[in-house]
């Protein structure tokens, strides 16, 4: 049997290669880079990015885009803090309210996109303004989150040995990734997003529930953005209306670097997971290096984005010729 690499998998292999390369370079150059602590920190520090990136993977595979995620994170975070801080709402209730609102927010955006045939980037741009404005309406300042239950959630962690812990936020990230993999590969919803992204017209002609899938994709992403807001507020123990400005770009970058085609129809949740880890790795690398300034992160992410987009372009062009 001839060894054949499925063309769809090439971007993901490239992603894994880049990840290993950076990890190897870091491990060779700096002592302590290759440690369980650094590796678990990748999951802890990027938990909120990762949670949204999973949702964004579905959105981009379905051929859409969601620019509102950063603002939704800020809105839900600040709302949860406000509810707990000023109104003494139980944390679980506050978080449930936030998740419901996030899902509703996504559903409304999805409905606008589907029923009125508005371009996704326009609708979600409006969503971005709206959620940010609502966050300011809730509170103009950062609010602390203090509650015995929240403290115990923050302190909770699964010991991994070597004096490292896997805290609740990282567990949420990993759980969401697993749910994402399940949804993508073992449900009709997952199949439908691929069909929708490959060709909406064909999906309609095949009798797939295009409208429902589209709205569900945005609802799912809204829910995950709200979840990321909760994770973020746990991570920082506060709610801040100016949090996560520009997060949507990091998330999109992670998804693209993870090998998802921006034109829709191809990509994997697992690839996105590695894309998120690559972004985290670049940041860790720059921290270890010490003399490089924070703006190099942006430039390196930009260059990586460019390389991966070129790769995608080349692959899809090769696919057309075949």
């Amino acid at each position, binding site marked *: 049997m001839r060894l054949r690499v499925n063309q769809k998998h090439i971007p993901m292999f490239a992603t894994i290669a880049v990840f290993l390369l950076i990890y190897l370079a870091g491990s060779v150059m700096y002592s302590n880079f290759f440690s369980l602590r650094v590796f678990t920190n990748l999951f802890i520090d990027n938990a909120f990015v990762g949670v949204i990136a999973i949702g964004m993977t579905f959105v981009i595979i379905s051929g859409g885009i969601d620019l509102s995620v950063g603002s939704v994170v800020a809105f839900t975070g600040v709302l949860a803090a406000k509810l707990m801080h000023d109104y003494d709402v139980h944390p679980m209730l506050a978080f449930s309210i936030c998740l419901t609102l996030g899902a509703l927010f996504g559903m409304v955006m999805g409905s606008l996109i589907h029923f009125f045939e508005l371009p996704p980037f*326009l609708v979600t741009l409006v969503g*971005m*303004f*709206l959620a940010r404005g609502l966050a300011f309406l809730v509170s103009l300042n950062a609010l602390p989150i203090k509650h015995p239950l929240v403290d115990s959630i923050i302190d909770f962690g699964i010991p991994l040995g070597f004096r490292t812990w896997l805290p609740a936020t990282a567990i949420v990230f990993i759980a969401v990734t697993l749910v994402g993999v399940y949804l993508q590969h073992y449900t009709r919803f997952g199949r439908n997003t691929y069909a929708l992204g490959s060709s909406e017209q064909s999906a309609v002609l095949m009798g797939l529930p295009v409208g429902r899938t589209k709205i569900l994709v945005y609802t799912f992403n809204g829910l995950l953005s709200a979840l990321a807001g909760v994770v973020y507020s746990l991570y920082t123990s506060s709610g801040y209306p100016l949090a996560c400005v520009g997060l949507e770009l990091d998330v999109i*970058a992670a998804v693209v670097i993870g090998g998802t085609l921006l034109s829709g129809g191809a990509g994997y949740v697992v690839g996105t997971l590695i894309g998120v880890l690559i972004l985290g790795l670049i940041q860790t690398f720059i921290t270890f290096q010490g003399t490089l*300034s924070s703006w*190099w992160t*942006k430039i390196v992410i930009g260059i990586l*984005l460019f390389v991966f*987009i070129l790769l995608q372009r080349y692959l899809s062009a090769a696919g057309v010729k075949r």
Partner: protein
Amino acid sequence: MVEAKGLKNNNVQRVLWPLMALAGILLFNLFFTPGFFHIEIKDGRFFGSLIDIANRAAPVMLLAIGMTLVFATGGVDLSVGAIMAISGAVAATVIRPDYVKGILEYGDVQPILLVLAIPLIFSLLAGLWNGLLVALIGIQPIIATLILMVAGRGIAQLITQGQIVVFIHEPFQYIGSGFLFGLPFPIVIVLLTFSATHLLTRKTGLGLFIEAIGANSVASRFMGIQERLITLSVYIFSGLCAGLAGLIVCADIKAADANNAGLFLELDAIAAVIIGGTMWGGRFTVFGSIIGTLIIQSLTTTILTRGVAPEVTLVFKAVVIILVALIQSERFRQLFSRRMGRRKVQIS
């Protein structure tokens, strides 16, 4: 979809809605904000709320002019905010080349032409980069310009080494805060850019070519339109406009702030273009975009003068944009005309 009405009629109708929205906001102010329409002349210069609105809107107007053409070709330029930051950073560095090394002396005063030309060349290159990615390599515009949006701000910070470069340079400051014929100089720049763009696109075939590319790029290539060249130049033009806007902001605050210059202004520009009635890929109106910018700015000013927290403006912006987008949506109109019991005849 082609509506059964004349093109000319359609164009007028397109600007009518934004104009009415602007008139509505101004009317509100006429009744509720005393002295809103008051314009006085001091030292041969005009002062007043209306002038202030136009002056504050000037950078976004420039962005919107460039964005309109990009929008008409079916693209979008997300990198304009980052290009503004780059252009401001370069200008400040030209004025004080040693500032980032910690040397605070000025050295020779740089000629104004140099201070203007070098940042504009940088913005032209940035636009060229976007254009090459979109027109030659064929990357989707949202993504192609996303690269520079992410990396561009990093480049601007690299140029200023993460510092806020402050400077004093009389001729350059004139660009941000000077007056010509009694008008603030930024408004004059906008008027000049607008007239030039209008003449270029409406008195020559260029405007129609751009619209043709937006409507169907393959068909327009078969028609013999140099689709790639025009797309490329549209992005270069947008980059130049952004560079100019960056210079105005930088000269106005007498400093280059790579972190915050032009932050989120790409969203304002996109909003202005959409409110102004330009479709994504197809018919465009630069005048409409100017009106769109004025709507956003007068809304902001109105909210500020009413004493509402400025951050809440975002909610109003969002509501206005989505309403205008809905009104322009074909499906929304159909919904309404069906409700009214009329059926619109459409040729599609």
